């Protein structure tokens, strides 16, 4: 019964969203802004660029909501918009920026305080997050979508505009590298816990 009521509430919210209700849209921004900022940051946008791209993403969502037919989850749809906006921004504003070039490189803005420094803070989440930040951008994005956002391979492929096998490869390699990095930081037993 609760689930039915919840679904009904969600349907009403979606209906309001599609009709252009600004309060409903404010709720959408509140709910998904963190996710959109996360997507932009992980793809390598600078802090001063992130807000512009996030604004463009929500503006595009606002304009496109009337066409959103609900085939995919709202968060998947928004992730897709944010991803495309960020990639298009990077392509336009960074000379020679290509997604494929990033695949086997370390992130260029890797932090100086690596796993060792983070370990001093003894915060698992921070250490894992820093390890994810060391991954190539596309791997990191796939890992975040899979583990954090709980998206299936099909949805990740749709968001990133890749085929499912490519996503599986990203996840496999990223996971293996994370395992190495975290095992080196925590020790196998801690990471296993």
């Amino acid at each position, binding site marked *: 019964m609760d689930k039915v009521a919840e679904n009904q509430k969600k349907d009403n919210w979606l209906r309001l969203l599609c009709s252009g209700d600004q309060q409903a*849209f404010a709720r959408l921004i509140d709910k998904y*802004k963190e996710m959109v900022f996360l997507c932009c940051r992980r793809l390598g946008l600078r802090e001063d660029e992130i807000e512009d791209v996030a604004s463009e993403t929500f503006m595009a969502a606002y304009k496109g909501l009337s066409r959103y037919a609900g085939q995919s989850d709202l968060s998947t749809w928004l992730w897709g918009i944010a991803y495309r906006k960020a990639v298009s921004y990077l392509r336009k504003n960074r000379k020679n920026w290509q997604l494929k070039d990033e695949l086997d490189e370390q992130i260029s803005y890797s932090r100086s305080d690596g796993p060792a420094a983070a370990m001093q803070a003894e915060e698992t989440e921070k*250490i894992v997050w820093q390890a994810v930040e060391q991954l190539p951008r596309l791997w990191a994005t796939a890992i975040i979508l899979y583990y*954090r956002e709980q998206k299936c391979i099909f949805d990740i492929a749709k968001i990133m505009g890749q085929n499912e096998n490519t996503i599986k490869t990203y996840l496999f390699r990223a996971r293996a590298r994370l*395992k190495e990095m975290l095992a080196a930081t925590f020790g196998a037993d801690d990471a*296993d816990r």
Partner: protein
Amino acid sequence: MPTGRLDEDRFDRFLAGALQKHSEPVPADFTERMLSAIQQAEQRRILAGIVFQQRLALAASIVLGACAALAAVFFPAATTEVFRSITGSVTEHAATWFGKIPQTIETIRNQWQSYAILTAVFGFAIYSLVELLLGDRLRIA
């Protein structure tokens, strides 16, 4: 480091748990600023629509005037006939309106191009007039 000892499922859970705890920093007033930007964009869109319709109405008035002038200069007989048949049908032959229907049909059949153009221009003029006078109110409502 014996990474082989890491249990796959546990590692997945560990990863998911740690990543889900992460919170991404977002400017505190982002939602308010975003809503304000959307409102401004909406206002700009409405204004652009009104300006476009006003320009269209102005263009239509000019085109209508030019068409009437051209028709009067180049096809005086046809123009006179068209207008006379319209006004004549209404004023002089109002009593025998229905009896005139076959004749009117015949006239339209003979001069259908003029009527088609006249109807289109007349429709456009009415539309332009409505847009000019009520367009912005209709859109905002």
